């Protein structure tokens, strides 16, 4: 399970030109002026933290802190024992 703080730290580590600690969770990266390569850099850091390889098709979903949180929350719930 990935926390909002971990996601913000991953964004900070990715070195994209944005203040990761203050960016609104619901704003899309595109609305905040980030481009596709910035998003690639964020995804790389998320992969390193979670040890989960993110499929190409899922990248278009991961476009805000909130969407990333929901994505990994869903993944964790699917992996949790019944």
């Amino acid at each position: 399970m990935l926390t909002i703080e971990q996601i913000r730290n991953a964004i900070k580590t990715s070195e994209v030109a944005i203040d990761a600690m203050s960016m609104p969770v619901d704003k899309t990266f595109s609305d905040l002026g980030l481009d596709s390569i910035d998003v690639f850099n964020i995804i790389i850091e998320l992969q390193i933290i979670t040890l989960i390889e993110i499929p190409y098709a899922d990248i278009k979903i991961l476009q805000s802190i909130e969407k990333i949180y929901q994505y990994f929350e869903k993944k964790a719930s699917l992996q949790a024992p019944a």
Partner: protein
Amino acid sequence: MIGIKHITSYIPADFIDNFEQGEKFGESRDYIINKIGAHRLPRKLNGQETSDLACCAIEKLLKECTLSQEKMQALVVVTQNGDGYGLPHTSAIVHKKLGLCQDVATFDVSLGCSGYVYGLAILKGFLQASGLKSGMLVTADPYSKIIDPTDRITTLLFGDAATATWLGEDALWDVGRPTFMTDSYRGCHLAVNKGKLQMNGWQIFNFAATNVPSHINKMLDAENLTAEDVDCFFVHQGTAAIVEAIAKKFPTVRERFILDLSTTGNTVSSSIPILLEKYYKEPSIKRVLLSGFGVGLSLATILLDKREERYVND
């Protein structure tokens, strides 16, 4: 011991202005400068063949150093876009155009951006196994042959170029033991389809950003070295973003990762020797690490060490 004696490059004078090209796709100057990294993309002339680029690089090298054509015993061309349909091999065509003698060994190596590192290892081993003393490693892979100018993903990246590296005895630089990696399951993400290059940018970025840093660390560990022991890191100049993504994983030596593709773009297997040509005679640079990655998907890393006590002024 066989090593690198001299390197030259040939960059065609014609070029595409990448800012103008970027505008057509709605890309900003900032994106071209900071993410792509290539301000201009050299282009071979129409009718200029891969072998012509190779000949230009070799002829330049022969003018710059003591090697005579007669002493060249092997000629290897790294290319996946050779003359015609690839038969005969481009190195044989270069052999004919330069009028080399019949006892020169010629063969091509089919690799993309990892091709220079592979080529160094292959030619060094070939010369040693054959009892030969002098060979030429050429990179010439003009992607303009396979680029679709309407494809935003690839047309902003690649430039045409060729390089020639003379390998021989009593060399300035020793060629170390390489390490390799192949991820063939992702090979389809950088491939030619119906004559045109197709690339999944995320897959290539992910492959490089994830694997190149760990591959470099693996090589350093195997050699009992740390990143601080390396004076310069010449990684394949795919894009500025890829070089930066790799470099930032080495925070203590980040500035030693050379980023220099503004006037050339991604020149495939030529990108590393183009960097080497610029830096390999700098007195302060005594150990460099090369890492090439791309088509395959393929990754190859190698160390070069300067032999100061046997400096050969060629």
